[in-house]
């Protein structure tokens, strides 16, 4: 177990390990919401937030957060009160808990368990449950439709996600994300390319593309944002939520986006490894590189969101079951063969 804080009391250690990812998520969420609005503005030929805080509206998300805290917490009369109130927190808890196994730098990982990837995929499955919970408990037909769509979508897209993650696991032979990252250090491919899995063999590029499409669907981003498609289902499972509970959904969604992007960065882009070998390496730079890679993937997700229209629910399923899943499994076999031969 890597312990950057020396020998401290176990209870204190738990608090510290819980606080670090939480801080990262909160800072990231505030920045990412502002960033998304600025990126949208840039893509759409407008300015985005400009007023709050002076410089390019940097304090806009903070102002929004303060507004949301003050809002009334409305629970519909016929809602299932406990489930309705509990769902947003459960959703956030699921994506937050998964950060425990993400290796933020060579010196820091929340929990060094040997089944890291397995744990991460298992914990994020709870997201589906909380969305159905929110959709059903609201006692609103639009919410219910959103919840059902989301359940179908997430369950389906988990299959290609897991299949592509498995592809990488075939190469590494380890489920521990720290080990996976360590295996990608060095710059040996063609003499200068880093040893990231994306460069290691051509099938892993295919795997990454499938993985990226699947995480778009898993985190409900355009073109797969059907559970909350505002032009069809009003706001899907979030329709009846207001104030902080709604903010928790947003937070969870952004956290989920970051989590899956970081997972992608770990599996395919060398995690905290510097692209220049030892140059700019080390734990602190490692954190920088890791977040940079993750945020770049998040940026691509935002870029896609502001460019493409949305798929229809049956087309979404078609893409998953008749394209992504067969291709990802064939790819898995090919990668395994490649590993046997070379």
């Amino acid at each position, binding site marked *: 177990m890597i312990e950057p804080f020396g020998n401290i009391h176990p209870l204190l250690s738990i608090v510290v390990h819980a606080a670090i990812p939480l801080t990262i998520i909160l800072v990231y969420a505030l920045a990412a919401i502002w960033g998304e609005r600025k990126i*949208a503005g840039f*893509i*759409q*030929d*407008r300015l985005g937030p400009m007023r709050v805080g002076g410089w390019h509206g940097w304090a806009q998300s903070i102002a929004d957060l303060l507004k949301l805290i003050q809002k009334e917490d409305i629970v519909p009369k016929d809602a299932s009160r406990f489930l309705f109130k509990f769902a947003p927190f459960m959703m956030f808890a699921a994506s937050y808990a998964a950060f425990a196994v993400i290796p933020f730098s060579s010196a820091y990982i929340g929990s060094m368990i040997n089944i890291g990837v397995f744990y991460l995929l298992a914990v994020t499955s709870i997201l589906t449950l909380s969305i159905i919970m929110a959709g*059903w408990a609201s*006692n609103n*037909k*639009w919410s*219910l*439709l959103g919840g059902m*769509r989301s359940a179908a979508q997430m369950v389906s897209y988990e299959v290609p996600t897991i299949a592509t993650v498995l592809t990488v696991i075939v190469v590494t032979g380890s489920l521990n994300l720290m080990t996976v990252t360590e295996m990608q250090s060095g710059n040996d491919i063609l003499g200068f390319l880093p040893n990231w899995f994306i460069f290691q063999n051509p099938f892993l590029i295919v795997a990454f593309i499938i993985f990226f499409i699947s995480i778009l669907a898993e985190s409900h981003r*355009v*073109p797969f*944002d059907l559970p909350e*498609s*505002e*032009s*069809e*289902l*009003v706001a899907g499972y979030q329709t009846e939520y207001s104030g902080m509970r709604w903010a928790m959904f947003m937070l969870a969604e952004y956290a989920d986006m970051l989590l899956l992007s970081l997972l992608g960065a770990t599996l395919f882009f060398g995690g905290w490894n510097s692209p220049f070998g030892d140059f700019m390496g080390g734990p602190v730079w490692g954190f920088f590189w890791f977040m940079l890679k993750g945020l770049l993937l998040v940026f691509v997700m935002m870029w896609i969101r*502001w*460019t*493409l*229209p*949305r*798929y*229809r*629910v*049956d*087309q979404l399923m078609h893409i998953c079951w008749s394209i992504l899943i067969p291709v990802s499994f064939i790819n898995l076999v090919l990668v395994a063969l490649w590993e046997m031969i070379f």
Partner: protein
Amino acid sequence: MIEAISNSTERREMVINMGPQHPSTHGVLRLELVLDGEVIEQVKPHIGYLHRCFEKYAEEMGDYAKVIPYTDRMDYVSAMNQEHGYVLAMERMLEIEVPDRVEYIRVIMAELQRIASHLLGIGAFGLDLGAFTPFLYLFTEREKALDIFERSSGARLLYNYMAVGGLMRDVHPEFKTDVADFVKTFRPKIKELNDLLSYNKIFVKRTADIGVIPEKVALNFAASGPVLRGSGVKWDLRKNDPYSIYDRFDFDIPVGTGEMGTLGDCWDRYMVRVKEMEQSLGIIEQALDGMPDEGDVTEAIPKRIRPKEGEFYVRTESPRGELGYYIVSDKSAGPFRVKARAPSFVHLSMLPAISKGSLIADMVAIIGSIDIVLGEVDR
């Protein structure tokens, strides 16, 4: 809902209200949907949420000219075309000869408004399908057209610009250069739109073969405008029954081709609008060339309106289809009866016939593609 779970073996439909507060019903339309899962079994449109008694108001006002501002408020997205139809009907009734300059300005305004209206229609259609960015791009262009209206008439949405026998006031001095600039900058934007949205694979997948209106159905429901032309019928009042000075211009009537799927699907109707904008640009260019530079636009406006007794009907091609005004006069200063034939109302009545068996997401696409304006449906 709890009941539904406990009798889960029994097949039950869900009745759901889409609107009047729903993001993609284009105003205050309410649809009663009977759903089986996400498949629509029945649609019942409910209208009347925006009813403002246009016809009664026209009767009670006691002045023909005072009806013009109200025609603006029918289809507020294409107010110039609404005014145009009404003043043409009035002029037929009073047998007024309108100066050439007025006619040209009216045509330019009407075609600019057609472009502005289609820009909104197309943009909102994209928005319904989840494409946010094209909507804002198109709005930037629409703003430029509205700027021209603002400089000439003083208003951006509801102009009250056309008068019986003329115009309220002359256009602003730089009108010709402004319009020419707009035409020049707008042409390349249509290509940009086609690259970004029209031929986008997801967009085509969402619109092709959806909401198909066969030619026969379109004719039976008396559809008109882009909805009818999307089904492959070459019918445009500007060509088939020319009014104003449209017989002087050379332009095509774009019709649906079934290029991406079935003839008469959402994509065809969308594409007809895109192509119509190009044709409108051509008309504007020709009108700019032919427009006389001098002339009093208010000279033919009658001091007092002295109508003869009788019934008059004039139909024009508004961006949404055939817009007709039926006016009954009893020789008094105000109309005895004014009835407007609104294309959106007709198109909305087609909805149950064309959307059965489609998904909720298709429903949104269908409403977007027939491009209704609720102000005109309810009047």
